[in-house]
């Protein structure tokens, strides 16, 4: 009964979506205010129906209703409750419904917070959101229905992949999906602007907080995924340049470029067409990242392309959405022309530079990911593109971004000279050089160089704040009062830029990581990286749906106990699969990391790592996301000022 209710709610959501797409868009076209005003209520209705639908799926999963095919294939009575709930988005069908749910919630959020927008823009944004939601909900209902029943029901379910039964991964999809799907909002704004045939500073001002929110989620989601592979896969790697990872990096790079170019639209009414294209691009990459990756083209083993209808349906849907919006772009973008003017050396110029580099990196990652497929299709050549390629091509493009990041915020709008900005950074350059030289004692030249770049980025990010409060040039008290009155957005920029620096420092620091694989008997001690690792004992333990072998390792430094690590090897009974549970002790500057391997003659294989500075990689991402949140909290961004006022503000900012 409950699954049927969920099924019905899904159908209802489709009806809402269709109405939300057709009525406001038609109303905006005809200039009929009553039709336009229907949009927010319909968006809320759609979100509500989707919530009910997804709630029913969670209910079926929690209640072990194995008459539901999706639950039978992905759950088990012994599975812990947490994973029964999170399993609702862990399965293929469930994850697509979840994707739709987030899109519905995005629509509801826009409906709630967009009251100050001009009626026609608001109606069009909501209409475009609903149009894309309609497509994916239809796909869920027709091709990937999570509520399909089976009869006779199996006695028990097939259980979820043990690798997914992990708290890190349980919360990875909601965050990452919010990032992916959140890109639908700037996309909808871009399409609405194309339909309206005009873009102004106010548009930039509205689109930026939504982009920023989605970008924060995407940053967090990618970092969480990377951290999870770091501790679950158990060999200390954190980024593999895998097609799936690249698929999440592409929208992130595009969204980062969009964030920066939208500033130019907001402040200077320039780069309008380019910003619209980036907004379409970010969503297009998000869609491809979610769907094409699963089509079996990039990952052919477990895929729904084995079911031809699904792959073709999705491709058709993406074709309509992406192709349609780019066609609209080709036709309508010329209307948006007439940009503000600026000199090459200016804040705008720096932001254009940022966009050139970020888009080049995007192009390289895209080429690397797709090249093997196209070489196979067109040239019948089987080649692989792996980490060595990306390291050789992406790093040289990233390096100038790192250098420019500190300089850009110090430049003024419209026209400026480069020297004054550089002179303000002399102390940053000095410290960065010292850091780099010191680093060469511990690591190779290349990581040391990136260490220096990290120092440059972190200190350079703060240089902007220091300049603004005129630290040490006016009395400290006045500096502090200036600090307090600085807009939050300034801190957002600083944190965002510094966060990337912290991540780069972590990656460079990882080059000093040491590891050792040893075969030891209980009681034996291994010396690694200045620590004494003692295998105290090996014992069996039983989990809810697995049996574990646990090693207890005491880690001492100079006889003082630092920590006790208990890595496990888990044998899952239903899925007949073994996983390794690495255990990590972190103090935010280094990770002590232990994995338990096979056992032989009473001795166990242990893999011990001392990962210097590894935690900084994810800490940096956290700082970046915090920077985004900081900017979001800024009143100037949060309050969608009435259109006229915003326009004159921008005029002032641009013309003074």
């Amino acid at each position: 009964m409950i699954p049927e209710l969920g099924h019905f709610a899904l159908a209802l959501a489709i009806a809402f979506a269709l109405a939300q797409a057709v009525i406001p868009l038609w109303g905006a076209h005809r200039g009929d205010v009553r039709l336009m005003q229907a949009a927010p209520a319909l968006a809320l209705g759609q979100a509500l129906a989707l919530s009910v639908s997804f709630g029913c799926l969670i209910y079926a999963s929690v209640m072990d209703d194995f008459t539901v095919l999706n639950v039978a294939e992905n759950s088990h009575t012994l599975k812990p409750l947490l994973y029964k709930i999170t399993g609702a988005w862990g399965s293929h069908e469930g994850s697509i419904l979840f994707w739709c749910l987030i899109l519905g919630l995005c629509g509801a959020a826009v409906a709630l917070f967009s009251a100050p927008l001009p009626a026609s823009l608001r109606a069009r944004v909501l209409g475009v959101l609903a149009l894309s939601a309609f497509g994916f909900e239809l796909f869920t209902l027709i091709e990937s229905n999570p509520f399909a029943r089976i009869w006779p029901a199996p006695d028990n379910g097939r259980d979820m992949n043990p690798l997914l039964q992990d708290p890190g991964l349980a919360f990875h999809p909601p965050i990452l999906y919010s990032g992916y799907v959140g890109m639908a909002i700037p996309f909808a704004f871009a399409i609405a602007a194309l339909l309206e045939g005009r873009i102004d500073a106010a548009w930039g001002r509205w689109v930026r907080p939504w982009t920023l929110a989605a970008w924060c989620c995407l940053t967090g989601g990618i970092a969480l995924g990377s951290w999870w592979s770091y501790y679950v896969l158990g060999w200390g790697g954190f980024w593999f340049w895998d097609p799936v990872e690249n698929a999440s990096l592409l929208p992130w790079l595009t969204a980062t470029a969009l964030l920066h170019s939208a500033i130019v639209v907001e402040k200077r009414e320039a780069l309008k067409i380019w910003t619209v294209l980036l907004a379409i691009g970010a969503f297009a990459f998000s869609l491809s990242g979610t769907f094409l990756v699963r089509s079996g083209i990039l990952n052919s083993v477990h895929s729904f392309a084995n079911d031809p209808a699904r792959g073709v349906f999705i491709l058709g849907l993406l074709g309509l959405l992406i192709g349609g919006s780019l066609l609209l772009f080709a036709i309508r973008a010329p209307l948006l022309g007439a940009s503000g003017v600026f000199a090459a050396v200016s804040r705008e110029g720096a932001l254009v530079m940022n966009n050139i580099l970020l888009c080049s990196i995007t192009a390289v990652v895209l080429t690397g990911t797709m090249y093997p497929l196209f070489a196979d299709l067109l040239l019948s050549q089987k080649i692989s593109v792996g980490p060595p390629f990306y390291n050789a091509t992406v790093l040289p493009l990233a390096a100038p971004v790192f250098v420019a990041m500190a300089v850009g915020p110090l430049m003024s709008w419209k026209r400026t000279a480069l020297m004054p900005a550089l002179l303000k950074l002399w102390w940053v350059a000095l410290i960065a050089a010292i850091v780099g030289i010191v680093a060469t004692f511990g690591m190779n030249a290349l990581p040391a160089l990136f260490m220096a770049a990290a120092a440059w980025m972190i200190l350079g990010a703060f240089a902007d704040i220091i300049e603004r409060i005129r630290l040490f040039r006016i009395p400290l008290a006045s500096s502090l009062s200036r600090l307090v009155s600085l807009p939050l957005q300034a801190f957002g920029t600083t944190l965002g830029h510094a966060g990337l620096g912290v991540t780069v420092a972590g990656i460079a620091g990882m080059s000093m990581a040491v590891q050792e694989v040893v075969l030891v008997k209980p009681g034996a001690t291994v010396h690694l990286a200045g620590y004494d690792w003692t295998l105290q004992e090996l014992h069996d333990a039983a989990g809810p749906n697995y049996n574990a072998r646990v090693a207890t390792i005491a880690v001492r430094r100079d006889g003082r106990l630092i920590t006790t690590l208990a890595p496990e090897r888990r044998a899952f009974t239903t899925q007949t699969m073994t996983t390794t549970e690495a255990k990590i002790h972190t103090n935010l500057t280094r990770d002590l990391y232990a994995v338990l391997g096979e056992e032989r003659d009473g001795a166990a294989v242990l893999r011990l790592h001392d990962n210097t500075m590894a935690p900084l990689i994810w800490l940096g991402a956290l700082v970046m996301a915090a920077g985004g949140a900081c900017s979001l909290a800024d009143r100037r961004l949060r309050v969608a000022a009435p259109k006229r006022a915003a326009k004159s503000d921008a005029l002032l900012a641009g013309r003074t």
Partner: protein
Amino acid sequence: MMRAILLVLLLLARPAWAISDPAEALPDPAAEARAVEIGSQLRCLVCQNESIEDSGADLARDLRHIVREHVAKGETDAQITAWMVARYGDFVLLRPKVTWGTALLWASPVLALLVAGGLALGLRRRSPPAAPLSAEEQQRLARLMES
């Protein structure tokens, strides 16, 4: 997306992980480091996008072992890589060879920069010169400055 990651993981998932046996490593640390360097450029044939050094698959372990044998025999990196390519083709190389077939791939960073930079320059040159403020705009500006 998560599902997609899972799929990769499913492929990676083996009962034994990269961690297998300390006896695998060469006794000479320099030779072992060279073996790791070579091995991390070779793709595990039965996994997705993992090098044989990272993979726990049986075949990857055998290939790791072979790399170490050849290193111990004193072969050059090129010889060892060629040995692998003779058996598994260019597919085994995580760093694709520079050939006509991969020219576009290796040129992509330069091409991307040229296209993006060219676009930025070309469009800039075409944009109209700064229009002076119109009378109406100046009035509005004055009003705004006063308020």
